[in-house]
């Protein structure tokens, strides 16, 4: 071909079948040189499969792939690397105990007589870092730096390998609002320098803000490609979900009842540094209200929840639930008293990945007479019935139903399973930590509805969230946490995102009484 192709990547009419399912059905994706192209779709729409095809992890049954106008056969991830395609995964692939620099050069180290030559590498990394505004500390260890900096390390890894085509797999799922902003700017810088970017996401606002064009997948089928400047969020979401989605959370007035949770002067130790991560926090959550703890990630929310749910001991302070002191209660006792906990990290705490879906759904209730008989044997038939009920009620999708291994389920459906389990327990207090993390628009709507119906049923809900939209829309009261302290109480009806941001950044603070 004499004239250079305008496309960095063309994936034409890709079809990939798995036993019982067509993951990609005649999907076409064309990424122009130097553009930011969003790939939008719900969980299970086939985005991951399409990327696995591009990286040679799967071979498509039909379809062709062109890179820069040349037809290519990608049957190995190494081939993709050689073609200059790089990916930042949703879950970072970094060595925790290595420094940023070591991680970047890992696999492509320059050596002389068997010794590492890091000086040149450092120069190249620093130059790239400066050019694209990717702030990193090359000598810090991965375990000590923020998630945002870890992601910038991943991006530098791709640039260090001179990749021209960059794929970001749901990059904002783990970031704070400020970090998201920064990432958007970085992506624009990269595109301006001629890199072609594929941005996999289901967050419409971000796609509208940063992408030039957007291709939509739904249930494995290619729906279409639109220019973002000619479309609206409503149109995109309708393309993605196949129906109109209500963005605004509908809810009535809160009917606030008696206090359910009373935390007084709680302090919790930090695992990272010597100071307390939570300092002298007091708050009250009443029946029939949703209280949200807002804040930038890493300001003590995680430790606060650990202290509240009994995963970590308190340094000082007390916790009362329904008037009873539970400061020293075991986790199981708290659960039996009516505390449910949707954990922040579903893989770490929420699921036993090698257990089947049904076994995970009874994780908090397996010991009840319904599921264990007097002799201590599991009542498998009841567990199956219960699992089938929850699967139907909460629309949990999986390959083989109740017996699917949790590991084999998509992230969104794993989250749905946890939410189903925790809400169906019938809690008096629901502690929901980032319950919509990694979920698509349709699923988020469902989770918010569940939280509000808990509230309307007279239960107390404590929501911990990093998503500004969620913080503004869902709760009845907002408490802002900054460096382990509650620095402000806001009424979501009266405040603005800007004001909230000032509290979150520590620029503004009030005395807050519980």
């Amino acid at each position, binding site marked *: 071909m004499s004239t250079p192709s305008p496309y960095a990547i063309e994936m034409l009419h890709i079809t990939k079948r798995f036993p019982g399912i067509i993951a990609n059905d005649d999907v076409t994706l064309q990424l122009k040189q130097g553009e930011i192209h969003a790939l939008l779709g719900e969980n299970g729409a086939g985005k991951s499969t399409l990327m696995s095809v591009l990286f040679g992890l799967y071979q498509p049954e039909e379809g062709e792939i062109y890179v820069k106008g040349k037809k290519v056969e990608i049957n190995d991830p190494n081939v993709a690397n050689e073609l200059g395609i790089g990916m930042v995964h949703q879950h970072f692939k970094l060595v925790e105990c290595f420094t940023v620099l070591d991680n970047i050069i890992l696999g492509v180290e320059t050596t002389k007589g068997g010794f590492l030559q890091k000086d040149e590498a450092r120069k190249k990394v620093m130059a790239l870092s400066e050019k694209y505004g990717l702030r990193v500390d090359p000598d810090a260890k991965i375990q000590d730096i923020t998630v945002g900096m870890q992601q910038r390390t991943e991006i530098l890894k791709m640039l260090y390998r001179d990749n021209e085509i960059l794929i970001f797999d749901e990059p904002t799922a783990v970031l704070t609002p400020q970090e998201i902003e920064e990432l958007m700017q970085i992506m624009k810088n990269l595109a301006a320098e001629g890199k072609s970017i594929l941005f996999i996401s289901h967050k419409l606002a971000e796609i509208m803000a940063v992408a030039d064009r957007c291709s939509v997948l739904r249930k494995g089928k290619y729906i279409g490609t639109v220019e973002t400047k000619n479309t609206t969020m409503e149109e995109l979401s309708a393309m993605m979900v196949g129906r109109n989605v209500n963005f605004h959370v509908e809810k009535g007035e809160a009917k606030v009842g008696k206090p359910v949770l009373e935390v007084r002067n709680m302090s919790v130790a930090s695992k990272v540094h010597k100071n307390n991560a939570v300092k002298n926090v007091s708050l009250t959550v009443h029946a029939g209200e949703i209280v949200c703890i807002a804040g930038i990630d890493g300001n003590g929310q995680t430790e606060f929840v650990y202290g509240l749910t009994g995963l970590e001991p308190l340094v000082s302070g007390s916790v009362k639930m329904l008037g009873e002191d539970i400061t020293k209660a075991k986790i199981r006792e708290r659960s039996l008293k009516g505390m449910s906990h949707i954990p922040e990290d579903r893989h770490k705490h929420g*699921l036993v990945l090698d257990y089947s879906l049904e076994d995970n759904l009874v994780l908090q209730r397996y010991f009840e007479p319904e599921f264990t008989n007097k002799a201590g044997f599991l009542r498998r038939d009841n567990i199956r019935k219960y699992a089938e009920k929850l699967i139907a009620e909460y629309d949990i999708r999986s390959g083989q139903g109740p017996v699917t291994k949790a590991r084999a389920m998509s992230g969104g459906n794993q989250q749905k399973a946890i939410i189903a389990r925790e809400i169906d327990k019938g809690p008096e207090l629901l502690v929901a930590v980032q319950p919509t993390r990694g979920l698509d628009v349709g699923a988020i709507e469902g989770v918010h509805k569940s939280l509000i119906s808990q509230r309307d049923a007279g239960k107390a809900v404590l929501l911990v969230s990093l998503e500004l939209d969620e913080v503004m829309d869902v709760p009845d009261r907002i408490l802002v946490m900054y460096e382990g302290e509650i620095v402000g109480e806001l009424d979501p009806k009266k405040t603005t995102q800007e004001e909230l941001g000032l509290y979150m950044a520590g620029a503004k603070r009030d005395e807050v009484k519980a």
Partner: protein
Amino acid sequence: MKKILKNDGVQSLLASLICILLGLLIGYVVLLFIEPSGAGEAIKAVIKNFLTYNKKESQLKYLGNTLVKAAPLVMCSLSILFSYKVGLFNIGAAGQYCIGIACSLYCALALKLPWWVCTLVAVLGGALAGSISGLLKAYCNVNEVISGIMLNWIILYGTNMLLTNVKEATSPYTKEVARTSAASLLPTLGLGKFFNNNKYVGVSVIAAVVIAVIVWVVLEKTRFGYELRATGGNKNAAKYAGMAEKRNIIVTLAISGALAGLGAAMLYLTSYEQWNCSTSSVPGMGFNGIAAAFLGGLNPIGAILSSFFIQHITAGGAYVDKKIYCAQISDLISSIIIYLCGFVFFMKLMMNKRIAKQEERAQKALAKKAAEGGKEQ
């Protein structure tokens, strides 16, 4: 056919068989290197074990011996796999087995207690040794492999010291249980007569099978097993769900230890073997238990079969012609085969890869056919 191949149980079985064949093959090659003329006969002897004998009576008698020694091996492999399911690697099984020997023999020879008391003390001894590792793991975060290995040595020398009190005056071996305290012998239930009056065969053979089934039921069917496997799968999630994960670690290692200790009583209370009070390493039974557990696909029922097989070839090694090969050859060949047994999970992985690849190809072919068919129409 494909469906059968994809079944997990079938895969485990196939992988085990492949490992066994590979082990035999490598053993054969080693024999060829040392002395080609006798290699064929030697490997045949290993495989044949008690079948070497022509007379049916002799065959039965030596089959009985193999069974007597397979029973404690079943217990050791159950000990390993039980803790393995909970995410713990109980390499201390060897020491727990050893403390079982010390307890059962001391109770029998010095105190002349009845067999069931001796057995109970051996079980408690093993449980105690296991729970030391468990306590250290749960409360001090000491790796159970390290504490297990260290305990193995302490227990070994403790056993030598204790049993020196009940050894023969003229040899390093302990007195025979059969002659010293008949009440301490395990009941034979009259099983010996099926094995040409082999006086060692008895309750232990049946007990080993029954206990394997119980272990399987506990792990797979009970609330306790559900908790243990959850702790093994993800201890953070187990803690989050309010399971007492520290208690579970201790209880698991205590049960593992009890199983190994019971295994020791099952062998030594038959009077089949005496303890050598100048032994300088823990008995290999506990370590062979690791191979048996993996060869059995970490399934209690599989452990019965794999333990029998491993004991079978270990005993078979004794029949290799010592005029051609040196005395150590029998141990060498059986340990090569046992070593290969550890590769079961690697084999399974390779098999699954192959199946996936074939499926991919079949899918492609099918799609192609469909596309061509479409064009014709």
